[in-house]
Structures are given as C-alpha cells and as structure tokens.
C-alpha cells in the first residue's frame, strides 16, 4: 500500500517527528511504499543540518537522512513555511540574498502542491503534529 506522511512540528520540542519517524520506518519495514514525507509548519525545522543534539540523545535529522538514503525516500520541506522559519537550500539562499544555507542531506525544498499531490497519490495520509 502507498503511504504519505505529514509532519507539522519541529524536532525535540514535540514528539511528532519521533512518532512519524518510527511510523515511517515501520511502513518501510513492512514492505509498504512511502510516496512522500512532507514537512510543514514548524516541521520544516527537521530539515536543518546545523543541529547538535546531546551525545546521549537521538539525532533526529540524521535518522531521517539515513532513512531517506536507505529507502530512496522523498522528503519535502514546504518552501513557504521554510522561508518563515529560516530553512534554506543553496538555491533559495542565493535567490533571497542570504549568506548561508542550512538544509540537511536528503531533504528538498518545494511547494505546498507536493503535499496535495501526496494526498492524491497515496492510499493513506497520516498526520503528525501538536
């Protein structure tokens, strides 16, 4: 079956990203397709490569990046939500005249249409938030 996942909260402050990660991993382990993981609202903050969590804690960004690499997972960060919150890739940084970018490997920035597409294309969409 084809799943899509929506994540509305950033890492660490709310459990949403953790729950979504374990859910997505379980989907893939069971042989399901995950069409797309979409990061919206504060969820875009999962996609920064600048986090340095404590040594004895999980590294959520690294977990997502590795899951994406292993399963060729499409992880999309909403561009409008990302601009409000300061998540940029190299292109966006140049376009906005910013002197740095912070997107993590495995994440790509794209439009909200990608969320609607995921809703259309997937058999089930599951939302994780606050």
């Amino acid at each position, binding site marked *: *079956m084809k*799943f899509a996942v929506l994540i*509305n909260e950033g890492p660490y402050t709310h*459990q*949403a990203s953790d*729950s979504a990660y*374990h*859910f997505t*991993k*379980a*989907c893939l*382990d*069971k042989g*399901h397709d995950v069409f797309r993981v979409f990061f919206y609202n504060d969820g875009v903050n999962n996609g920064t490569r600048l986090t340095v969590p404590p040594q004895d804690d999980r590294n959520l960004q690294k977990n997502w990046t590795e899951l994406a690499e292993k399963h060729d997972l499409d992880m999309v960060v909403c561009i409008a939500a990302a601009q409000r919150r300061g998540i940029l890739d190299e292109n966006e940084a140049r376009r906005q005249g910013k002197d740095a970018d912070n997107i993590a490997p495995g994440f790509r920035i794209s439009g909200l249409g990608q969320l609607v597409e995921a809703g259309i294309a997937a058999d*089930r*969409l*599951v*939302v*994780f*938030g*606050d």
Partner: protein
Amino acid sequence: MPTLHTVNKSPFERTAFGSCLKHLAAGDAVLVLEDGVVGLRKATAFAGDLDAVSGDHKLYALGPDLDARGLKPDDLVSGVTVVDYGGFVDLVAEHDRTQAWL
C-alpha cells in the same frame, strides 16, 4: 467506510481527546499515542467518557508510549488493545482514512 482517529493529547490538558470521542461514526476506531495515553488509565475523571464509547468502537494504544509514561496494560480502562509501530501501520492500512486530532 470506517476512519482511524489518532489522539496524541492528554484529555487532562486539552479537549481534543474528548472532542474526538464525540465525532466517531459507526465502525470508527481510535488509536491513542504520545501524551494521549495518560487518558487511558482507569479510575480517572475521563474514564467514563471512554467507557461510553468503548462498547461501539475499538480503542488502541501505542505500547511504546505507554511504556515511556510508566503505564502497564493492567492500569488501563478495559477494552484497550496495545499495538506497536507496526500495528499502527496495519491499523492505518485497515481503515479507509486517518484523522488526527491535533
């Protein structure tokens, strides 16, 4: 065309869990996760609300979240089925849609 409702908020902190229970259609089930699981304990101010729906609707709880909050299956109201993340996936697949009560 049953729905799987997901609830991740404590009924003692927010009204989402209570509102969810008031919007169940025939055949709908509820999966409780994250802080929501504290609402499943028996002998609380909320247990009556659960009892009122658990005859007609299946209640599921995410085991990893029960463990984290020190809740044992014996602590819960009757009629709750405990699942892991894989069981969560199965429930989503078995229902026609999922609705999150954020």
